């Protein structure tokens, strides 16, 4: 157990930092500090391609697929430097961080050939179609149907139903969708994992305005939407297994990038407290210190989790991680507003820090809801990690 980096790793850090600084001071200066997931989409596509060419789109991927086969330590370094350079939020993070590892594990050779390179180069942006209005916490309750039909373009899946909370859907090229492909099946059986092109008449996207005032999520409607029969990951009926694997990748190296965002938010908060004098309030100081402990905990829990993931089974800290950060960030949001005081109540502040912290405060209310509520997380911890009896399903 060691926290320091080797000279070779520090050399890698230097290389990455230099490259990022050059890009973001030069041709991509307009993208520096762009943190919104919905802003400057076209420019960020170009940036994704730039990363891909530099083999920095996903340094952990195998070399044959355009990565660098980087070690965990190097991935940590990349995430740190990416954040430090204030490089823009990754446009295709669902493709890079969730779908690509899923394809690397469950995809056919043809699927890897077809999909990985466009992901890497930012040519095809992906979104995720899991939740439905009646399949929120109870994800296995998916009702969106797909059936295989023969037609002029060969066999195709035809999809009908509705997905919700599909972030990025408005400008995604593809969506990975959990569908019910066995008629009459219930629960997590009879589901399949399909890859569906977004740009077709059978798909309609409707933005959902959230309490932040922005529309970061969407509803996505499928009305006879189509995709080629080959665009299924895993066998028909194996969708649940594949979807769960995808979710598990949320606990992967993408957590490092997320943590860097958290660190930036924390730093913004500290700066705001210093600016308005709240940093000298002993009560606020206790809470800021507590938040800093949470940051440290998340960092080292993620490293434990990633190290342990290399050896297979999901370890204890991996079960607790999702719940921990959701609760932490919600508290950070409350702290931020207490630091801002009444000035934080203005809807449109000229001060970027106030705007960012407000948005974080409001958005963080969903951090204990999406991707499995805190209640669901606690169930999973209790049942899977502590071995307590399962919750009875209703009758």
């Amino acid at each position, binding site marked *: 157990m060691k926290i320091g980096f080797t000279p070779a790793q520090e050399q890698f850090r230097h290389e990455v930092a230099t490259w990022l600084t050059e890009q973001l001071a030069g041709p991509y200066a307009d993208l520096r500090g762009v943190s919104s997931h919905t802003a400057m989409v076209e420019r960020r596509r170009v940036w994704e391609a730039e990363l891909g060419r530099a083999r920095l789109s996903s340094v952990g991927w195998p070399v044959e697929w355009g990565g660098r086969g980087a070690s965990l330590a190097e991935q940590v370094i990349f995430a740190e430097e990416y954040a430090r350079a204030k490089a823009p939020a990754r446009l295709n993070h669902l493709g890079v961080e969730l779908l690509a590892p899923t394809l690397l594990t469950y995809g056919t050779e043809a699927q890897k050939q077809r999909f990985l390179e466009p992901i890497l180069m930012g040519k095809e942006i992906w979104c995720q179609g899991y939740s439905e209005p009646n399949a*929120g916490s109870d994800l296995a309750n998916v009702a969106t149907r797909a059936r295989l039909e023969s037609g002029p373009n060969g066999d195709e899946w035809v999809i009908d139903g509705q997905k919700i909370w599909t972030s990025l859907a408005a400008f995604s090229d593809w969506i990975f969708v959990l569908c019910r492909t066995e008629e009459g099946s219930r629960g997590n059986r009879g589901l399949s994992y399909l890859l569906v092109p977004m740009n077709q008449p059978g798909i309609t996207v409707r933005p959902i305005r959230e*309490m932040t005032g922005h529309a970061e999520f969407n509803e996505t409607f499928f009305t006879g939407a189509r995709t080629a029969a080959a665009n299924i990951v895993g066998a028909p009926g194996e969708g649940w297994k594949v979807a769960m694997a995808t979710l598990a990748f949320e606990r992967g190296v993408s957590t490092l990038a997320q943590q860097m965002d958290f660190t930036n938010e924390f730093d913004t908060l500290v700066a705001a407290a210093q600016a308005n004098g*709240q940093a000298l309030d002993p009560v606020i100081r206790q809470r800021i210190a507590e938040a800093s402990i949470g940051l440290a905990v998340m960092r080292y829990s993620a490293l434990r989790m990633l190290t342990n993931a290399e050896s297979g089974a999901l370890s204890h800290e991996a079960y607790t991680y999702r719940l921990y950060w959701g609760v932490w960030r919600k508290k950070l949001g409350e702290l931020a507003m207490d630091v801002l*005081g009444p000035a934080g109540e203005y*809807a449109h502040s000229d001060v970027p820090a106030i705007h960012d912290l407000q948005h974080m405060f409001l958005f963080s*209310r969903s951090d204990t809801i999406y991707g499995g*509520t805190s209640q669901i997380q606690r169930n999973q911890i209790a049942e899977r990690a502590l071995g307590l009896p399962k919750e009875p*399903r209703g009758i």
Partner: protein
Amino acid sequence: MQFAFTDEQLMIRESARTFLDAEAALPAVRAVSATSFGYDAHLWQQMTQELGWSAIAIPEVYGGAGLGFVELAILAHEQGRRLLPSPFFATVCLAAPVIMQLGREEQKAQWLSAIAGGSLKAALALSNQAGHADIGRVASTLTRSGADWVLSGEAHFVVSAADADLLLVVARVQETGVKETAVAPSVRVVAVSPKASGVRLQMTEMLDVTRPMSSVAFDQVAVRADALLGLDVDASAGLQRALDQARVVLSAEAVGGAEYSLEAVTAYVKERVQFGRAIGSFQAIKHRLADSMVLVEAAKSMAWYAACAADESTDQDLAMAASQAKSCCADAFNAVAANAIQLHGGIGFTWDHHAHLYFKRARASSMLLGSPAWHRERVACGLGLGSISSALQF
């Protein structure tokens, strides 16, 4: 000692609830929030002229019903349940008590009668740019100009000021030629017309769209001697009592919001099915709602007691009760409204759902007239824990 509503009080609550259930449904609240002054003038007319809400706590001699803060708190509680945007808080619960405490007889006769009759809307300009509720930190000053005065400075977070007929401005007296000393400066409240020369008023858009606020700047505004509330003596004590009375009413309003928030989410979890069961049958949900209910009931006990204190107690006892209530009820409303979002799941996070309106109102109310932490520090002083030169500012 009788710690339950009288029949008359129950009737007031009942009729208010019936009225607001009919008139202040959520779509209506959203709609009026978007209008220029952020409230429904017609509804306000009904409240004041048909229902007599603005008269309820004003002495009979000024044309009021002669009741007290318990009754005001009841009405605020009911409006809180519906997040009703209206000048009620600013005019009836904040400005009227200030006039009651500080006004000369002829001022009371003039203004309180007009408020009771619904023809006057007033607002109190107190907070500085940072939103401090401390009287000692006001950002407006009065300087003498012969027998009269000149008002300069600014005030922020002024509730319902945009179309008020009268501004009551809290200002420090700045004696010409005298350096500011360590002694707390003398404070006056002056009545100013929003249309007076040198007054600039700007509405500010708030996260909580249901309680409009403005910033007001005063640029060498001429103030006649008789525009001073009361005589030319320090107004701090009377002002403090009026502020504490307003805090009590605000607490009751918060309890109303919390109560409604809890009722709505309780109804939702009985209907929403996941895993083949109403989610309200899961213990995790049940216990979170039970905790919310504990908070609501605690806040009620605190708020109703404080309402009694606003009528019956000494300044010192009222200060304690008001700060305890403000802290307790604000914390409860924040927690209950947050929990309601959580238990609604994704839908509770959307703009079109009511949950975020309550959540935002809860926080906005927390910050108005002193944050929970500020009030707890005040309670600590009141308990005799001694004074600290605290960095606590809100």
